């Protein structure tokens, strides 16, 4: 058995990236994700891999775009307000169909905000701030162990679908250490030889570009991208269900907030109230279908987030039943306390559950 060690989320992500063959890293320091770059600056040099602390986040993500077009396994990392700077390139990378893994360890916004905890980048990640019809795959870990597993998965999905993947991490999780095992990367390597730009000796030349002055071709290109997104939406939704089978009240939450939701769920279960927790692991593709199925048995769906209700709209899109949908949230700062959430839930459900 491989021994557990006490690992910080940021370090876990960096180690997992190395473990699954990340050959290029580009970044620029920003709290709360700086340890990723700090760790890789030493380790990648030792392994003779490409590490660049760029002149800015815009530089970093564009270097990632260039390196990805040559078929390298590429990662960039940053945080909220600096990921905002990268949005243009994400749209380019989606159009160019380039596999880039971008880690966003979230801090508080909007604007410059500060290093306080927040889950304010759900919209930025899932909808995106770039132009045009494009999608980015978004994965959301809730523990350090999952930081490792979802880093592997990010690289795999990025290559499998030739699409940017965002690993959306709570600042708390990036900074927090807990016991975790550096497992083996379970995913196969994807052959990139059919598209990468690695020198045209003995083969016809290729190019990768998003400029397309022919409207029919551009139309065809976007339709092709959407066929791919459809396939992603069918095959890749991933989620965790906690005591959902008989749940009359379902709490929805992503990232570390889902852990608090489980603790709260246990609290209500002890009082005989049938509560469950539904945690999307892929934020895009959002697991609408499963949430829809579960919602038909639920009287209440209560969404809990450390923002003003960004995932809430996806919850609303998923739920087609008559369940009452409510929201508990706070934009910035210390995570909502268990007692605060419990009281807010009691307030919501008091009509049907008068006994508590």
């Amino acid at each position: 058995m491989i021994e557990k060690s006490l690992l910080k989320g940021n370090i876990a992500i960096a180690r997992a990236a190395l473990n699954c063959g990340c050959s290029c890293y580009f970044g620029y320091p920003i709290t709360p994700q700086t340890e990723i770059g700090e760790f890789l600056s030493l380790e990648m040099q030792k392994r003779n891999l490409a590490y660049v602390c760029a002149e800015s986040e815009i530089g970093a993500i564009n270097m990632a775009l260039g390196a990805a077009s040559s078929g390298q396994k590429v990662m960039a990392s940053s945080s909220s307000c600096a990921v905002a700077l990268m949005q243009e390139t994400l749209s380019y990378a989606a159009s160019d169909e380039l596999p880039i893994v971008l880690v966003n360890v979230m801090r508080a916004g909007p604007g410059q905000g500060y290093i306080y905890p927040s889950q304010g980048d759900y919209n930025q990640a899932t909808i995106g701030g770039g132009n045009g019809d494009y999608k980015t795959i978004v994965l959301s870990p809730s523990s350090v162990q999952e930081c490792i597993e979802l880093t592997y998965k990010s690289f795999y999905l990025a290559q499998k679908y030739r699409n940017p993947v965002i690993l959306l991490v709570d600042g708390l999780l990036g900074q927090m250490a807990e016991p975790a095992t550096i497992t083996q990367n379970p995913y196969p390597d994807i052959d990139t030889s059919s598209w990468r730009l690695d020198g045209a000796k003995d083969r016809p030349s290729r190019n990768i570009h998003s400029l397309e002055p022919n409207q029919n071709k551009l139309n065809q290109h976007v339709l092709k991208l959407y066929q791919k997104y459809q396939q992603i939406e069918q095959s890749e939704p991933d989620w965790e269900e906690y005591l959902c089978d008989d749940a009359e009240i379902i709490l929805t939450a992503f990232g570390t907030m889902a852990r608090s939701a489980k603790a709260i769920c246990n609290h209500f279960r002890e009082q005989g109230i049938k509560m469950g927790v539904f945690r999307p692991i892929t934020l895009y593709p959002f697991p609408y279908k499963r949430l829809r199925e579960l919602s038909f048995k639920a009287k209440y769906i209560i969404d809990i987030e450390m923002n003003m209700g960004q995932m809430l709209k996806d919850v609303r899109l998923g739920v087609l039943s008559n369940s009452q949908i409510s929201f508990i949230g706070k934009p910035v700062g210390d995570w909502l306390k268990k007692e605060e959430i419990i009281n807010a839930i009691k307030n919501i459900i008091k009509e049907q559950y008068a006994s508590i």
Partner: protein
Amino acid sequence: MIKNFIISGSGGQGVLSIGTILANIFMLGNKFVTYCPCYGAEMRGGAVHCEINMSDDELLTLQNEKADFVIALNQMSFDKFISKVKEGGTIIVNSSMAKIEKTRNDIKYIFAPFTQEAIKLDNIKIANSIALGVLSKILGNLTMENVKKAYEKILKDKKELIQKNLDAYLLGYNYIQEKEYA
């Protein structure tokens, strides 16, 4: 059962070191544990604290308002975290660098001159390990084997410091043996 800990002091006092060691001791004892360091932009001399949560079950509540046990290595952290001790909880204070003063009667206080004791051992830097020893004594269920392993792991690049720190830890562990603590 969840137990929460806050270890606090100023940068350079080894707050995060004993925090990591304590978290490792719990991990080696097959507990679920989370460790969160908190510090400002400044390191040496600035305020530093860390939070540790330990449980037999999967750790679900990650941030807690209050702690069962607080270690305060200087006056600033004593003042700051006295209100964070849970009712019935314990605060362990470095009386070399903080005034002996009891402002609450719903918690237990332990005052010990960690810095002075460390100077007696010829190394002011190991005051933190003495404090950890005191905390261990109160907790009562940490095995010396795991304590040793944790120190060896954290100090693997500074092997010469392991024994010194273990001596300091044991001094702390035995410090309150004869004192009243229930």
